């Protein structure tokens, strides 16, 4: 046992038989991260935890219902007085570091509600199955983020014309504990980095960013795969080429350039980086499995989002897509925030129903009812969400 812990157990002979030292016990994630008891743990090393659709009913996602996708092991013993953000790379005028208090005092602060969805949300539905965490529908959130604009920081540092891409660096460690490996270091092209809503955030929902979501600093790129929103942020490299950090190379966070048949092998060179996430929606009320009496109206509600774009139409169907009815759809509170919808449904007769929801974006692109284009890593499943309802 001492070998597992990596130290001699002093007084080990006095330890009760059948007692397991705490060093070997797993920590309870619900206590550790203050999660709702209904959150689903997909993976515990590293932590990957998702919400169920009905847990995402809030207009602004709270910490307890927010999915956690970790690639490595989060940093421990954070000393915020020593935390710095260093901007470097081929395309900066000069390397520059900021302390947290410098970031907060030097730049104007902004608050936006930003949709963050894991690129692999919905992966569990691909056939043949794709490798990785088998997310169902709950790897999406829309919290309120407060921070400073990345573009203001980059403006202060001074960026050369050669700048093409930014890549983030963070304080988490690789699950192999190899200090020379970064668990993940992704980024976005300059056009996304320089958007008003691209934040270096130190607050989520008005409080310090929770530990699992990047305390004390997180890059937030709303509408793009959540992997571009680097947690525990301590560096940003301004690159004169596409960033080549961990999980930037194919096949990670990439889909085929051209459509492929299910199960087809795709060469790395034939894959492209995922940028804006596709149009999607979730019915967050009621929870799937509701039984109602005939003649009673069913009120449904949920959220819709479309990456960089706005959702312009929201519909529901109770006959598997044969007919569609319009939902009331709200405007987003700001760009890149999800939009709320609701509808009242009357069922014609008793029986089993599925309520399907379909969002359409400003380019007239709608969610498919079937699982969309198969891809080797199982990204971008934006198929319509549905709930089961019984009318008695």
């Amino acid at each position, binding site marked *: 046992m001492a070998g597992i812990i990596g130290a001699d157990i002093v007084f080990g002979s006095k330890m009760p038989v059948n*007692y397991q030292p705490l060093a070997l016990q797993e920590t309870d994630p619900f*206590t550790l991260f203050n999660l709702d008891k209904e959150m689903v743990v997909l993976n515990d090393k590293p932590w990957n935890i998702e919400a169920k659709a009905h847990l995402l009913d809030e207009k602004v996602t709270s910490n307890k219902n927010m999915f956690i996708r970790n690639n490595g092991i989060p940093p421990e013993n954070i000393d915020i007085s020593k935390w710095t953000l260093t901007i470097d790379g081929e395309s900066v005028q000069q390397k520059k570091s900021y302390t947290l208090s410098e970031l907060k005092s030097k730049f104007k602060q902004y608050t936006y509600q930003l949709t963050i969805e894991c690129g692999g949300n919905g992966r569990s539905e691909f056939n043949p*199955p794709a490798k990785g965490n088998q997310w169902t529908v709950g790897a999406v959130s829309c919290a309120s983020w407060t921070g400073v604009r990345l573009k203001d920081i980059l403006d202060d540092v001074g960026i050369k014309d050669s700048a093409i891409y930014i890549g983030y660096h963070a304080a988490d460690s690789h699950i192999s504990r190899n200090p020379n490996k970064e668990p993940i270091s992704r980024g976005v092209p300059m056009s996304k980095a320089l958007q008003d809503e691209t934040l270096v955030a130190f607050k989520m929902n008005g409080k310090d960013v929770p530990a699992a979501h990047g305390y004390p600093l997180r890059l937030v790129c709303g509408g793009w795969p959540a992997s571009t929103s680097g947690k525990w942020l301590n560096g940003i490299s301004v690159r004169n080429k596409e960033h080549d950090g961990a999980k930037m190379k194919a096949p990670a966070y990439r889909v085929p350039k051209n459509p492929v048949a299910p199960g087809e092998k795709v060469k790395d060179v034939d894959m492209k980086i995922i940028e804006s996430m596709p149009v999607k929606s979730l019915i967050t009320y009621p929870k799937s499995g509701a039984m109602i009496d005939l003649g009673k109206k069913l009120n449904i509600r949920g959220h819709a989002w479309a990456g960089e774009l706005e959702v312009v139409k929201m519909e529901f169907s109770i006959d598997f897509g044969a007919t569609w009815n319009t939902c009331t759809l709200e405007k987003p509170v700001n760009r890149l925030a999800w939009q709320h919808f609701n509808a009242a449904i009357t069922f014609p007769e008793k029986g089993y129903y599925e309520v399907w929801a379909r969002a359409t974006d400003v380019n007239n692109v709608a969610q498919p009812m079937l699982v969309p284009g198969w891809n080797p890593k199982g990204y971008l499943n934006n198929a319509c969400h549905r709930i089961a309802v019984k009318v008695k």
Partner: protein
Amino acid sequence: MSKENKFKNQAKQVYRMLIMVWCVVLLGVVFAIYALVDPNFSAFNTDEELQTVVIENTIEEGDWDKIENGIHIRTGFVEDDGLMTVVNNCTSCHSAKMVTQNRMTKERWIATIRWMQETQNLWDLGNNEEIIVNYLAKNYAPKSMGRRANLENIEWYQLN
């Protein structure tokens, strides 16, 4: 003051300092041992919920590799030939859940092992590779789900 007395005084000072240093070291060791045995310092925590959780997670040492209803309790792996080889090689870096939530063919399990060897510091599995791959391909093989599966495991409830 004679040279002898001066030496005695210096020796006393050194002696006192040594005692001080040892006391500090001893305190540190006691603290470290405590931190090792109880990293959450739960003895100082009156939060009942936390304590309950700690107790729930305690696996008795004798049950370390306990198997119940064909499932290796500690990891969730299915009991079959090669189980312990899989446990020992596949759960030291990542969670068993990373494996058990996936479904792959033999060819794709091998490709996944190669990917981990190329990018995630996985060691050469030698003769164990065949044992591991056969175990995985048999017990964690893909099932065809079609283009959209039925809704399953619905928990029905009355909505008023």
